[in-house]
């Protein structure tokens, strides 16, 4: 086939399904919050990961039905949502316990006994890394650096820092989680950001466009002035 015979490649439409916005699984409240997140971005797909966090807030993990809803909301296929989600450690496509306990074993924590702590955690919880306790309360995870290295070995519960842990303090932490005494400070898995964005923060897009045009004009004028003043050097 000569190059001329080849069919002209046609770029696939930006969204394979189109953002129909039809949802079946996510609650009305979550969908409303999802739509306001989508509105923050120039392209709907940018909200994909924030929407995955929202879905985890509802279900504790990313259910296939939730991924299908997210796909409809941002205008991609469910496979694209799944393909993106599986790249990221914090997005769970399998069920997770109420509390995700992340033990960092990276270099700074390793030097301060993290490997021993993780071994203790496996024994005392009776699960291997990656598994959830039989009561469904705790999922144990071996984490990479969580950026809290002056409190090593570092542990997070549902991504809230709980400070350096010893085997003894770890057992107390687990007992507290099971007793529900820290539920105010540590929401159940999936709830990441409890502070909502204040409405009205968005700048008026038309005003922004006008200002930008005026600025570009002023910038060009100043540049031209500088050029003539500086002898064009």
């Amino acid at each position, binding site marked *: 086939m000569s190059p001329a015979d080849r069919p002209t490649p046609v770029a696939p439409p930006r969204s394979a399904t189109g953002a129909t916005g039809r949802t079946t699984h996510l609650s009305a409240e979550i969908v409303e919050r999802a739509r306001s997140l989508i509105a*923050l*971005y*120039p*392209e709907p*797909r*940018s*909200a*994909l*990961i*924030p929407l*995955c*966090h929202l879905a985890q807030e509802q279900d504790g993990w990313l259910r296939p039905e939730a991924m299908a809803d997210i796909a409809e909301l941002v205008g*991609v296929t469910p496979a694209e949502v799944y*393909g*993106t989600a599986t*790249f*990221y*450690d*914090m*997005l769970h496509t399998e069920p997770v316990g109420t509390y995700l306990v*992340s033990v960092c074993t*990276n*270099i*700074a924590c*390793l*030097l*301060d006994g993290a490997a021993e702590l993780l071994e203790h955690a496996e024994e005392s919880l009776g699960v291997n890394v990656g598994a959830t306790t039989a009561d469904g309360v705790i999922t144990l995870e071996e984490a*990479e*650096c*969580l*950026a*809290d*290295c*002056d409190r*090593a070995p570092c542990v*997070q519960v*549902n*991504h*809230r*820092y709980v400070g350096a842990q010893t085997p003894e303090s770890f057992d107390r932490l687990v007992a507290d989680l099971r007793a529900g005494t820290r539920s105010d400070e540590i929401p159940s898995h999936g709830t*990441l*950001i*409890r*502070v*909502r*964005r*204040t409405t*009205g*923060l*968005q*700048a*008026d897009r038309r*005003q*922004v466009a006008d*200002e*930008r045009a005026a*600025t*570009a004009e002023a*910038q060009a004028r*100043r540049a031209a002035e500088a050029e003539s003043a500086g002898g064009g050097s």
Partner: protein
Amino acid sequence: MAVTEAPRIITSRIGFDDSHTLERYLATGGYEGLRKALSMTPEAVAHEVDEASLLGRGGAGFPAGRKWAMLRKAPVTYLVVNGDESEPATFKDHLLVERDPHQLVEGVLIAAYALQVSQVFIFLRGEFALGLERVQSALNDAYAHGAVGADIFGSGFSVDVVVHPGAGAYICGEETALLESLEGKRGFPRIKPPFFPAAIGLYGDPTVVNNVETMSNLPWIVRNGGAAFAALGGGRSTGTRLFALAGHVNNPGVYEIEMVKTTFADLIHAPVLGGGIPHGRELKAFIPGGVSAPWFGPDQVDLPLGQDEVAAAGSMLGSGSVVVMDDHTCAVRASWRITKFFSRESCGQCTPCREGSGWLERIMERIETGQGREEDLDLLLDACDNIAPGLTWPPQQTTICVLGPSIPSSIGSAIQMFRDEFLVHIKEGGCPYD
């Protein structure tokens, strides 16, 4: 050398319990830098940053002013702030977003004005749950205060700032991977050139990406002038910088230190800084700038904390993280853990990184667990050579991003500095430190 009495440029507020609130921020000079910037032309603000010679604080150390200059020729569309702090043992941005979020917001607004950008995204790693809440609260308060949104402080300049949560991937600290992630995709670094997203950034539009710490310096620079910042430090390393000190020291933590005037020995041993090594032990080795950096030994402890000085000695200041290992540390185990990290975080696009990291990790594991063979040392170096030919520093690039060529650093250092230790593991069939 001694610890100098430099002004606290970005940690002046963190001693207060309420350092994250608007009230405290306003009571301590908050948003004055922004008001001053808005009274200047955007070019004049950018000029101050140029004068300051502020080197980017993310890891690569590229001058922020020059990064901006690439864009001033074309109108910039987006400013993206990189808060995906994930380089192991780096925890300075963690401190800044939780303890002084308004300072970050003000810095971002100053940068947005200088670049005439009306849309900013602050990308924070998802594991910063509290940091995400603090920055969002700060933005909400700043909006109510008139500092964000339409016509800020009556200047006629409008800007919107969106906080974007990441979802856990080291590679998203690489700026092109971060942009992919911000577009809702897998965090795959983009092929270079272009080497900077200045030309082709977010959605293909011109974009500036700057680190959280870089942005947090701007309010002080605008208030006090770029020259005042440049007067601190020495050579190309101007101003102060945050150093995250971790590992075997009595006082691990984040310290603001005047560049070049202080040495690694000061940082590790000075009573007001690291406070020395616990249990009366000796220094075995230290990593000067994140786990991508080659290690240093006790001989290099008197090097100053300066970007060029550390580079000349064969490593890098990188992300400003210093990890101290005492003489009871197993070099094989430490290097194995670092290799395991890279293997886990490799995005998988490039063969040398994806395959090489896995091979290296398995060989390191078998040496540490007593299954090693004598030829493994050559095998390790050979595999490293396939990822970064010649094992030079800075490394040769065989992959799309710098993650791959960073993998050999710890293994190369460990073998070079502690070859005997590897041989003992192999001969005795186990770790002598167990």
